[in-house]
């Protein structure tokens, strides 16, 4: 027989599993949508504006940077969307939009693109953006808008449309977040309220329940390494539990620690940034545990009420070292004990 064309030759394997990187990224976005929806429900239109601005600024920055570098735009891999969403969810819902926008630009430009884009970032880009904002606007980022205020769907917080470089004006300001309330006044919120998200805080960190749900979905789809959240939450629970046993007056209960602040969002969606976390299961567990311990240490003894962001950034910095120290044992080489 004859064939009227040339055959293709390429290297084996000649079949691949269907799943693709952009698909994984898209699923992370799906998992985050309920969290974002709840924050809009709890905080109203202001939160919606913050989240949309964050996503738009991240995606736009990525697109423009690729354009300037004469490369094909990489926004279709959805990673910039995730960064924007996560970044927006870590901000107070009444945060001035121009600050949100500049934070989004910083997150992508300095957190990701400067290292070479997706796959090369050392730190979680969303947290880089937030860390810069925290340093630049320490007041704005700790001024909270009350959750479930009656007119949240009809009025926009006066601080939202602050002109660039102007002092934001706050009309309604809530009391403290549960964490700062505990830190400075020793008032503990109920665990149930925390889990359901009926408290004040950043847009996306209030509903621990929905965050857990999103995480379970990703773990079920095998798109997330469960070692990291388990190790991180476990170490927070154990360490704060120990402290609580020693002195219940000074140290918050472990359940309060677990469900308050940004720990859930951080443990499930931020620390698990695959690029900036170790690659082996054991390394991932160590990494999670280190972050968990840092969270408790910062919350308990540090100057700030919340420490998830810095703990994860420090963990990111450690991750390459964990990877070079903890390597998988290669088949047929000696185990630690010396036996082959």
């Amino acid at each position, binding site marked *: 027989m004859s064939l009227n064309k040339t*055959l293709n030759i390429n290297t084996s394997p000649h*079949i691949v599993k269907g799943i*693709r*990187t952009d698909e994984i990224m898209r699923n992370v976005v799906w998992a985050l949508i309920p969290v974002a929806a709840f924050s809009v429900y709890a905080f109203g239109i202001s939160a919606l504006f913050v989240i949309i601005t964050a996503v738009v600024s991240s995606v736009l920055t990525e697109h423009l940077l690729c354009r300037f570098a004469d490369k094909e735009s990489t926004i279709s891999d959805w990673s910039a969307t995730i960064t924007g969403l996560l970044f927006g969810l870590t901000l107070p819902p009444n945060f001035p939009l121009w600050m949100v926008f500049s934070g989004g630009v910083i997150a992508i430009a300095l957190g990701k693109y400067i290292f070479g884009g997706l796959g090369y970032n050392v730190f979680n880009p969303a947290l880089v953006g937030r860390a810069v904002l925290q340093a630049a606007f320490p007041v704005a980022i700790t001024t909270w808008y009350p959750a479930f205020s009656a007119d949240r769907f009809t009025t926009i917080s006066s601080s939202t449309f602050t002109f660039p470089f102007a002092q934001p004006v706050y009309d309604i300001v809530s009391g403290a977040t549960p964490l700062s309330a505990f830190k400075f006044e020793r008032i503990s919120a109920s665990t149930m309220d925390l889990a359901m998200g009926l408290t004040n805080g950043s847009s996306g960190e209030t509903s621990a329940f929905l965050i857990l749900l999103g995480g379970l979905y990703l773990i079920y789809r095998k798109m997330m390494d469960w070692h990291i959240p388990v190790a991180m939450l476990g170490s927070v629970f154990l360490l704060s539990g120990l402290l609580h046993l020693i002195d219940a007056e000074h140290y918050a209960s472990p359940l309060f620690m677990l469900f308050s602040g940004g720990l859930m969002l951080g443990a499930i969606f931020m620390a698990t940034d695959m690029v900036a976390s170790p690659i082996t299961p054991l390394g991932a567990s160590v990494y999670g545990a280190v972050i968990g311990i840092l969270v408790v240490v910062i919350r308990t003894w540090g100057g700030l009420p919340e420490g998830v962001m810095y703990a994860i950034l420090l963990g990111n910095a450690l991750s390459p070292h964990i*990877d070079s120290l903890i390597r998988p044992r*290669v088949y047929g080489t000696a185990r630690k004990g010396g036996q082959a």
Partner: protein
Amino acid sequence: MLSFLSKTLKTFRHGIHPGDYKDLTRDLDIARLPFSDELTIPLSQHLGAPSRCLVKVGDKVNRGQIIAEPAGFVSIGQHAPVTGTVKAIEMKHHPSGKMVESVIITKDPFSPQTFYNEHAMEWENLSPDELISLIQHGGFVGLGGAAFPTHVKLKTPEGKNARFLIVNGVECEPYLTSDHRVMLEQSADIFLGIRILLKILGAEKFYIGIENNKPDAIALLTKNIPSDMNGEVVALQTKYPQGAEKMLIEAVLKREVPSGKLPIDVEVVVQNSGTIAGIGMMFRFGQPLIERVVTITGPGINNPANLLIPIGTPLTDVLDYCGGLKENTRQVLFGGPMMGAPQSDLDVPILKGTSGILCLTDEEVTIKEEFPCIRCLRCVDACPVYLNPSRLGALAKTRDYEGMLEYHVMDCVECGSCSYVCPSNIPLVQRFRVSKALLREKQAKAVKKSA
């Protein structure tokens, strides 16, 4: 429920679960392909030194007659698969892409093509070395695909001891069913072959490893084990690359072959079930390895089949017999989809190591967009020798070959599991192949220099 049961079966750690696609040919009996008019027998169909040619142009040869002898210990004999005349001895395209010296035989159209020297071979009173020599001259290689000469693995080095023989009936490559059919149709030959190998090795026990996607073969062989033999059929979980020697040993015996060592170092010898059936057949009626069972399959072929094909038959004749290729065929592979060798042309012969011919169409062969590595650890989870392919891939990209050595690239078995699972479509295993080839070259040079 069933998947829970299969979880309890033995297997190795890591690995992947590609779909098995074996339904195309699973239930088709082995059929004999008619003899082609002209056959091409490359003198190098195996790993090791090419065989030394014994015939001249114009010589008449009989079916099964030896036409080339082993040129050294790691080399084998070659035989005429048909009765006919030597037409030429020249360079021909080899399925590996190389040009290889080959003997071309034209079929004698009037010959009945029966094996010329039919007789049962005496083996019970021969010494192991004599039996090894018979197998070497019989031209046996591993029929699973790597084509490593069988007798080399049977020669136990000084001071080593082969206690177990593992018969590899795993056939973990998707699509392929040739070993499966051989186990179903030639179980008597397999047990005769095992008897002979046990005698050569002095081994105490044999295992037949079969994946549980071949329940009929497991049942049949378990039923047919002769009562005087010490061995068992081990049903294994279906997983790739279980057919790799090291993985099979781990699955069956829970032993790890030390890095850089051979199975004999853990007292095991592994042989492919098809090879053992062939050896049994040779001792039953004297026929050396001149034909083998090949699965012709894939979405690109009109009539998939399991065929008994004389070595050296042109690929085009085989495809014609199976109804030809479909219009949208894009790729023809020798072997399975995970490790098979792509063919650049159809003008190649069937070899001893050809376990299957897989025809893929435009649908399967698409260029996949490559993304950056996102370190999702799927490759780490898949690697059967527990390497870190993500890290190795990054090192290969920057040509840091020394760094790759440190990350044990030489232990890579090139099974392709990492490339299979990579969501970013990074050609990991191809990078490792290139790096390994370069490193081997470097090492060879270093050895030469120090010598």
